[in-house]
């Protein structure tokens, strides 16, 4: 007779600092874990990307080739490729092992704010300040995007890709969800410029933060607001992602309700405290500080 499996413990929000890494690449524009959470990528203001080992905190590789600040990076599911976007209006596909530029894609008219692979790393989706999302094919040698989504009336600040959906947040105050399976576009009007969007872990909700210092949890299907929280003034100054990759919480909806009073993160070096909804937050500090209790959570200020 086997003992029953121990009850899985609910994931906890990050509460203590594990490691601080001095990136030495100017302002850190984005910090991203790889697919399995063993590595961290940082995008620097010095036009470089750096790959760090989480466990040891050592620098593994530096990727240079961008002409300006690197604004976002994403790692493919198999850790073989990176895609990054930069203020130099390009999106670059990297080979992780060799550090070589596999493809340099031009087409955006402005700096590219965000980039992400789809699940199978067959498409890169990049959102730019020019108001378009471009879908780049990683399989073909075609330098043109597969499709340009130009529905936004202002710059795209954030995008997330799920299995068959694309969620974009735009400065025009709208969260757009492109459903490829349904062939539909849902536009949710938020009003204030969107700084970041993401899906909840169960994929039933969307979470969006906007410049009015508010995080809103919207039902994906109906667009109704399930909850909102207005943060302290700090968020206005850091219009960055404070909502991350699920936060390790089984039901984000519940989590959001539970954490109506957000967890206040106290940065170790005397920086002002800030609220955290649980997730990756990145900032324009001078270095990336991994603040995490699990693999998937870190914060950089």
């Amino acid at each position, binding site marked *: 007779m086997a003992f029953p499996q121990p009850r899985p413990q609910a994931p906890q929000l990050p509460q203590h600092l594990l490691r601080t890494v001095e990136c030495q690449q100017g302002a850190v524009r984005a910090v991203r874990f790889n697919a399995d959470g063993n590595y961290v990528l940082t995008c620097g203001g010095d036009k470089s990307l750096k790959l760090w080992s989480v466990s040891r905190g050592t620098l593994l590789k530096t990727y240079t080739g961008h002409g300006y600040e690197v604004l976002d990076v994403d790692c493919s599911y198999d850790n073989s490729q990176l895609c990054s976007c930069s203020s130099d209006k390009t999106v670059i596909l990297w080979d992780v092992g060799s550090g070589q530029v596999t493809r340099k894609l031009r087409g955006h008219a402005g700096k590219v704010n965000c980039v992400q692979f789809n699940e199978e790393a067959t498409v890169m989706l990049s959102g730019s300040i020019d108001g378009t999302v471009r879908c780049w094919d990683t399989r073909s040698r075609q330098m043109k995007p*597969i*499709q340009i989504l130009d529905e936004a009336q202002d710059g795209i600040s954030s995008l997330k890709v799920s299995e068959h959906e694309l969620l974009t947040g735009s400065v025009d105050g709208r969260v757009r969800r492109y459903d490829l*399976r*349904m*062939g*539909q576009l849902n536009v949710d009007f938020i009003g204030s410029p969107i700084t970041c969007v993401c899906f909840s872990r169960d994929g039933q909700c969307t979470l969006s933060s906007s410049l009015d210092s508010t995080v809103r949890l919207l039902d994906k299907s109906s667009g109704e607001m399930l909850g*909102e929280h207005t943060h302290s003034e700090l968020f206005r100054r850091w219009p960055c992602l404070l909502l991350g990759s699920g936060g390790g919480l089984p039901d984000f909806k519940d989590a959001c309700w539970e954490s109506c009073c957000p967890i206040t993160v106290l940065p170790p070096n005397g920086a002002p405290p800030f609220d955290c909804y649980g997730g990756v937050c990145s900032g324009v500090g001078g270095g990336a500080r991994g603040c995490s209790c699990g693999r998937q959570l870190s914060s950089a200020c």
Partner: protein
Amino acid sequence: MASDEDSDEDFVTYGIPLEPLEEDEPIRKPVPVHEQTVKDEKGRFKRFHGAFTGGFSAGYFNTVGSKEGWAPSTFVSTRQQKAGRQNARPEDFMDEEDFSEHGIAPQEIITTDDFASERKDQLKDKARVVNSLAALIPGDPGLLEELIAPARSSIGVELLRKMGWKDGQGVGPRLKRKQRKQNTDVAKLYGCALPLNGSEESEEDDDEFAPENVTFAPKDVVPVDFTPKVDSHGLGYRGLNPLQALGGGSESAHINLFTVQSDRTSSLFGGRNSGQQRRGGIAGQAFGVGAMENEDADIYHKDSMSNYDTVLGGEEPGDGLYGWTAPHQYSRKKNDSKRDVVYSGRILDGFTLASEITEIKIVYPPPDLPRDFRPVHYFRPVVDSSTVSPIIAQALQTSRGHLSQEAPQQGRHSLDSSQRRDMLGETPLQGPSSVFELLGSKDRERLNEIRSAAKEQKKSVVNLSSAEDRAALVASAKAAALQALSSRFQSNTPQPDSLTSPAKTQASSETQMALNAWSGPTADASKTFKPFAKIPQKQARYDLYINKLKKGDKDALESSLDSSMTEWERGRESDEFVRAALLYKPSNSSLSSRFTRGKHEDDTDSVEVTRDQENDMDDKQAAVKMKMFGKLTRETFDWHPDKLLCKRFNIPDPYPGSSTVGMPKIKRDKYSVFNFLTVTDSSQVSREAQSASKPPSSSTTLPHLTPEVNKKSRWDIAGQVSEPKDPLSAFLSETRSEVSAAKQIEPGDKNQTDSSHASANPEVKVAQSDEKQTEPKTEEEEKEEDEEEVRPPMDLFKAIFASSSDEKSSSSEEDSEEEEEVAPSTSEPIQSSAETLNPPISAQLTPAPDISKVPDLKHLTVQSKPSAETTTAQNTQSSSQSAPDKSQGLDEEEFGPRLPPPGFIPSAHSPQLKKQKKKDKEKHKAKKHKKEKKKKKNKKHKHKGKQKKRVEESNSSSEDTDSNSEDESRVVSTSELLQRLKNISNKR
């Protein structure tokens, strides 16, 4: 014969007998042709190369083609490679010996003629001289050759010339005279026999004239001739030339190779000195003096001392030239008359000196040219003005080159630009050419008057005598005065018929403006914008109108419209035309001439617009403010992902058949008047929504605000209508968006009967207008007219408006009813309380605190409620009674869609119009809702899902009372309500 018998034995046989045939020998096969060989005497094979068919022998011993023979270049077909054809040079066919030094094509590096030394020339000269003896033309052959042959000197000579060397001079440093003399002496001493003394003589002559500091070029040294002496004559002796000896014809009796060229030529020209050489036959000192000779002076030549100067610097020769320039013969000249000839040289044979000097031709100086002389004469063409275009004719007339009496020659600067343009044949520029044209027509008329008046006055001073002139003057003055009057009054005073309504005044002023704008002599109609290009007939009418406007026709509008059209159509079209004429009037400035039309007309008529357009922003903003996310803020569109994108995402294409990518687009009329209409409409709505806090003016205007606007078809009025801003409209638009989002708009009759919907939904309207610009409107209009005909009696109005507060938004509510039923609201308990002001959030999420709050809210609203309920009946009654008579007149006058404003937004706000509007609305309501009224009342209490609507109702009711009783202080304004609502939610 006995001998015959003998001969049997010893007979003579001829030829070689054939080999005896042996019986048993096998018969030899004949040798085939290719085995038959021929050998020559040495046993070598001979090849015949078709020798038996007229062939040839090829190469040395027929070696061509053999191993040791010459191999012909392999045949290469030139069919494919014509360009690379190799040319056979003559050298290809030469032997090695030919390339050797003495071959026909020596391949050594040799100096070309250009660089060849003089020596060679000398040799050639010699050969020439020798040849010349047998030449047909006797004499120095070199002379003739030099005359004929091109002067071509070698590089060495050229170089020497460049360095200052002259023909006949020696090479070397320049010398003093003395030195040279010594040299010549030396030459004399050691030289070979110099039979002619010519050279010495010349030397003698340039004596001591040279001053000390003058240097001379060294004397040319003739190179020693190394021709071997082959004859047995003595040194320097030449054998007799038989020709000379016998015929004596040869001039050059003694050819001295050593004489310089100049001496020879001088002998050729037959100088005096040559006389002694002219001796025929055999002559010579060696032969003594013959009988034929007349001279015996120097049979035995003795060099006497008298031939020499004994004194240095002796007397001058006498000609006073000192031998500087002239040849030495000149100094010897005695005959002065022949000096000229002598000076130029000797007389050629066959020529004699002229005895008389020809008279010198008198050359007159050229005459002084007059200052305006033209070296070219221009024949003025005969211009036939009938055949030649006037421009050309004029150009010919005024062209330069002929001095026409009527038009004196003008300078470039005295011409004005148009004249210059005509000269150049350019087309006149578009646009006004003078400032005068920039003036308004009225001003221009006035200026013309002044000018003409001044002219008349001048004229009258000159000749007032004739009665005719005076009459004409009076008439013109009268006309001018009339014109001025009319032009002045047209802008200010309305036409008699237009006096009735201010709107008409506006219309007439607009037509006047259009007239002013177009009557200028500016661009023609063909180049102006065609606003009605979609409908050719209409465009034609518009063009006609514009043309008439340009001619200054006052009643251009009326005359250009189609008389077969209905009154309403005509009225509408006239409005459109006036607006369009004002909108697209020719830019009355020089700017118009600076721009050219686009070369490529890129589909000017239509624009690609996404089919689904987002609803009103302001509705959403309001919803966001109220935190009512969901249907209000959510919009769903069709979106077509790219096929490849689907493939990459491992997702089946949601639209397998369609080829569109992204949002489906439709083409829309770019310049449709109705585009403007919708645009301004939404802007009005937004303006209303933004100023939601403003105190409400009249509730009754609101639900039917837009249809009213439609009827007005006046921009000024529309602007006035949009002025009243109240929050109700915001709510209204919210409901509208909600309705459209739910896609429950029922097509057809509902849209048309419920005119609030028709106008509220811009998309619907535009769609209609795109399909048929005129028809839908007319239908609608007819329907409305029908309705007006069956207008219910007054008491019915009263009955309706007694409960108007309930009905205010019924039309929109009706649409949303089904939807609400489909999605039953969760807040059932609150339904009983009719007028709650609860946001949906609180209702759904936190029911418990809500319930506690309900009484408060109810209380809040109830405050305003009683007054509304009590007062509405009478108030609406009274208002409806007063309204109709005012409105009727206006309604009939103006129909049709509103047109874009011609650039001005009137700010005047007329209360009268508002009232009229309100009444109109009531009218509509009466028509539509009289039957539904009761039913809806019952329904209303059931539907609590949308609290918003209730808010709206309460607002409208309160506004009803507000507008009618004009007691604002009592009523809670919408903004206040909103504020409270927010407070509540915040508290929660």
